[in-house]
């Protein structure tokens, strides 16, 4: 087997620039990939470089095949699949690295560079934050520089020239790209689905057990942002309802959605209209300000009056809602449902059940029972804390009668159990409460630290009523947010603190920028495109295509004019001007240079005709030819030539 030779036209400097650029592009991936893949990629790059420096040939085919098979096997062993984002990235990175080992000639660099472009694109499947736009532009610029240097015939170009040309290409391309982004018809995805999507996102889960919400509250991450058309409701009304949990197993509350149509909602026609930009959380719930009255078609409404998306949310979602704070939900509750909302596991919360049954024995009126319950929470020494003691045995009884320290899920869970035990239909609702106003851009930021749990109880004729037992214990939680509600010394997420000074202000500004980015760039999906285009008067595909073609034609035409005129503007050429003068002098002497005559031929003719001029003519012609066609033009050549020609008298 003959070993492939290295191409002398892939200089080691170009190779080094290429390896470094690819490495820089792969850094964000390397942080996610198993360590050995990054190591492999580095080893392949280093090996390839050493081979080039020493002028050795590349590894033989059998070795490359062996390596490839081993690596694919390793990836399969690590991920149990070759599909999906993570495994796909691992494959792409290692294949690019292995491709380096068979990159002989310049045309092989194309394949590697194209793989590099795919690596750049792959990065965005993991993160689409604003800094990634900078990553995109810088890496495209660097990659184009490599492409350009691969096409220099002689390899004599200077790096800054490539950098400039590459920069010019990117800058000139940006207007066209912007038009394409805006007008190129978008199709609704997804076309296929990968097995491991929707990984590791934070957000509420479908269940609630002691500790689950408090854990979420440790995170500063943004859950969603809300822009209101008009006034923003006061903090005490900012209950963002997400999930309704109906089933209690003694430890965990979970959802069981009856397959019935959504219940009747009556409301007064005072409404808030707002847009929510929800961060992806890998599930289907959609938060809504209590109580949503109207939603778009894509949004489903369950029997528990929750909003659900059709598919798990793997990308940011922008939706528009209307909500009314004054409502009546499900005034009629059928007996079988009522029964379901009273169910409790027999074995747990025995003490709580006794307490509730005592209340019920005193009065059958749900209002009285509610009052008794509130008094119970208010009068005893309940503490609202992010770090409650663990409740391994029977969380409700332990919490109510032993520790009395808990976070909102403890209060909501215990209260719901008490209500059910007392014969009042009850269910737990999880969602978010509060939200911080960003004065820049006038919108609310709701973070994971605003996660909350409360209870809805059902009363005849009034439907479901929101009861928030946490508010009895810690009214500040509802009015002023988590930080003010917690005792000093509790680990509060940094951005949930009310006054963090300059940093906080910067963070709000950054968030406003991100909000715009999320809303208008990342959220530019087929439906937003439709509404933007119809606002521009482009309400069918034909007009859109026409506008697209016309705008691109306009931009390209402008660019063409600029580029071509730039070339026409001839640089003043002192050599040509001097020589021109020489020819004019000779022409006056009756020796005109013919069109086809090169300087050398012309000089020969002049010397033949006027031997007396031989010396200056030869000198001038030689200087001119050397300066013009010689490998390097001495900088003083034009000056010398001018001097010779000035003294030349034919």
């Amino acid at each position: 087997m003959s070993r492939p030779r290295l191409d002398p036209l892939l200089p080691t400097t170009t190779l080094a620039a290429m390896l470094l650029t690819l490495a820089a592009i792969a850094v964000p991936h390397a942080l996610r990939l198993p360590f050995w893949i990054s190591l492999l990629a580095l080893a392949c790059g280093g090996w390839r470089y050493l081979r080039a420096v020493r002028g050795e040939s590349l590894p033989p085919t059998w070795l490359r095949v062996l390596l490839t098979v081993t690596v694919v096997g390793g990836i399969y062993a690590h991920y149990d699949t070759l599909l999906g984002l993570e495994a796909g990235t691992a494959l792409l990175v290692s294949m690019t690295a292995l491709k380096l080992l068979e990159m002989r000639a310049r045309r092989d660099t194309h394949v590697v560079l194209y793989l590099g472009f795919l690596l750049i694109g792959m990065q965005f499947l993991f993160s689409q934050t604003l800094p990634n736009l900078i990553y995109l532009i810088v890496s495209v610029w660097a990659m184009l520089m490599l492409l350009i240097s691969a096409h220099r015939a002689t390899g004599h170009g200077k790096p800054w020239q490539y950098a400039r040309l590459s920069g010019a290409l990117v800058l000139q391309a940006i207007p066209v790209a912007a038009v394409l982004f805006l007008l190129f018809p978008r199709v609704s995805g997804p076309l296929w689905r990968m097995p491991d999507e929707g990984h590791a996102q934070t957000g509420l889960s479908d269940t609630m057990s002691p500790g689950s919400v408090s854990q979420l509250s440790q995170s500063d991450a943004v859950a969603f942002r809300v822009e209101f058309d008009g006034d923003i409701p006061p903090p005490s009304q900012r209950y963002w309802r997400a999930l309704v949990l109906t089933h209690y197993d003694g430890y965990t509350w979970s959802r069981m959605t009856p397959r019935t149509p959504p219940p009747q909602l009556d409301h007064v026609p005072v409404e808030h209209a707002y847009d929510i930009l929800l961060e992806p959380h890998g599930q289907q719930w959609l938060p809504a300000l209590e109580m949503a009255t109207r939603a778009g078609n894509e949004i489903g409404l369950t029997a528990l009056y929750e909003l659900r998306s059709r598919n798990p949310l793997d990308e940011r979602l922008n939706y528009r809602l209307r909500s009314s704070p004054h409502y009546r939900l499900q005034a009629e509750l059928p007996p079988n449902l009522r029964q379901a909302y009273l169910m409790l596991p027999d074995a747990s919360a025995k003490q709580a059940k006794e307490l509730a049954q005592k209340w019920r024995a005193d009065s059958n009126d749900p209002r009285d029972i509610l009052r008794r319950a509130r008094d119970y929470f208010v009068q005893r020494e309940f503490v609202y804390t992010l770090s409650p003691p663990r409740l391994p045995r029977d969380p409700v009884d332990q919490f109510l009668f032993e520790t009395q320290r808990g976070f909102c899920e403890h209060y909501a869970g215990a209260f719901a159990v008490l209500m059910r035990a007392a014969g009042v239909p009850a269910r737990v609702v999880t969602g978010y409460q509060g939200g911080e106003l960003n004065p820049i851009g006038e919108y609310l930021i709701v973070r994971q630290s605003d996660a909350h749990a409360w209870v809805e109880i059902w009363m005849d004729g009034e439907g479901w009523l929101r009861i928030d037992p946490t508010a009895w214990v810690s009214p500040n939680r509802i009015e002023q947010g988590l930080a003010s509600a917690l005792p000093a010394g509790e680990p509060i997420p940094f951005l949930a603190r009310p006054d963090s000074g300059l940093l906080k202000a910067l963070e709000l500004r950054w968030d406003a920028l991100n909000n715009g980015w999320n809303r208008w760039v990342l959220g530019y999906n087929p439906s937003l495109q439709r509404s933007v285009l119809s606002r521009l008067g482009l309400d069918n595909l034909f007009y859109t295509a026409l506008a697209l073609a016309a705008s691109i034609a306009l931009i390209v035409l402008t660019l063409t004019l600029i580029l071509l005129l730039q070339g026409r503007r001839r640089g003043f050429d002192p050599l040509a001007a001097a020589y021109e003068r020489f020819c004019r002098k000779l022409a006056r002497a009756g020796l005109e240079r013919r069109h086809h005559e090169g300087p050398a031929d012309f000089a020969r003719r002049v010397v033949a005709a006027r031997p007396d001029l031989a010396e200056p003519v030869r000198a001038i012609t030689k200087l001119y030819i050397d300066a013009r066609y010689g490998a390097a033009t001495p900088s003083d050549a034009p000056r010398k030539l001018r001097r010779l020609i000035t003294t030349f008298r034919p």
Partner: protein
Amino acid sequence: MPNLASSRFKLPRLSQDLQRRLLRGVRTQQGHAVLRYRRVYILPTRNGLMFAGLLAVLWVGAINYNNSLAFILAFLLGAVAMVSILHTFRNLIGLKVSAATPEPVFAGDEARFPILLESRGSRARTAIGLQYQGEMQGITDVPATHAQRLELRMPAPQRGWLSAERFALFTIYPLGLFKAWSWVDLDARCVVYPAPEQGAVPAPPGGAAAERGTQRGRGAEDFDGLRAYRTGDPPRHIAWRSVARGLPPQTKTFTGEASSRLWLEWRNVEALPRERALSRLCRWIVDAEAEGRPYGLRLPGIELAPAQGPAHYHRCLRSLALFAL
């Protein structure tokens, strides 16, 4: 030769004639021409098509994951490709092409037409290649307001005039995604001398003296005197000793020269087929010139008095090349 993928770029297989009619080229007038935009064609290269495939992959991925940044990447790269068309195009148009007179060659050798590329504007031209019959023959960078030389190499199978055939000047710079090219028809032709007959050749009549002369050795001829050196005098007749003393170069003359003067005549080879006859004469001229003997040439209607030196040598060969065309 740089191994650029583009050198394998093939045009649609049309007959030469049809190509000529469909694809207008640039014809040099009085030796030069400028590549104008109407004559410059542009098509994607193989790498360009691969790049389009890459864009399609990125675009489909962007749709599937509804990923705005992937859309931006795909659109930005698409726009870059679009803009690169302009740059590739601009790299070629306005380039001035001039033809210089090619050196004569013998039939069977390769004719080399010198081509001067001149960038007239303030822009440098990068990686301009010359392609003839699908083969890349050279590539060069032309600095702004400078000129660079390339050569068109064409086989010269038979004596006579060889006209430069259509070739392409092309560029794939800067990104290699598109290839811009222009057909160029040079109004240049190359004189092709007959191929000198190979192998053992009978000596020309009267050449025996020459043979005797060479057999006896150089020094045996009768030294006659010195005269001023003239361009083309055989080096072994130069009086090196006086040159070494710093005197102007002088050439020794020999009395034997007159008697060894050689007439190469058509009638001596008339019996052969014409081309072989010319080949034979050619060989005699080449040999005589190499020996430094004056020789004359007599062809029907042409008589070149005995002499020697490059000018005479080429005049003789040219007469043979253009004989009875």
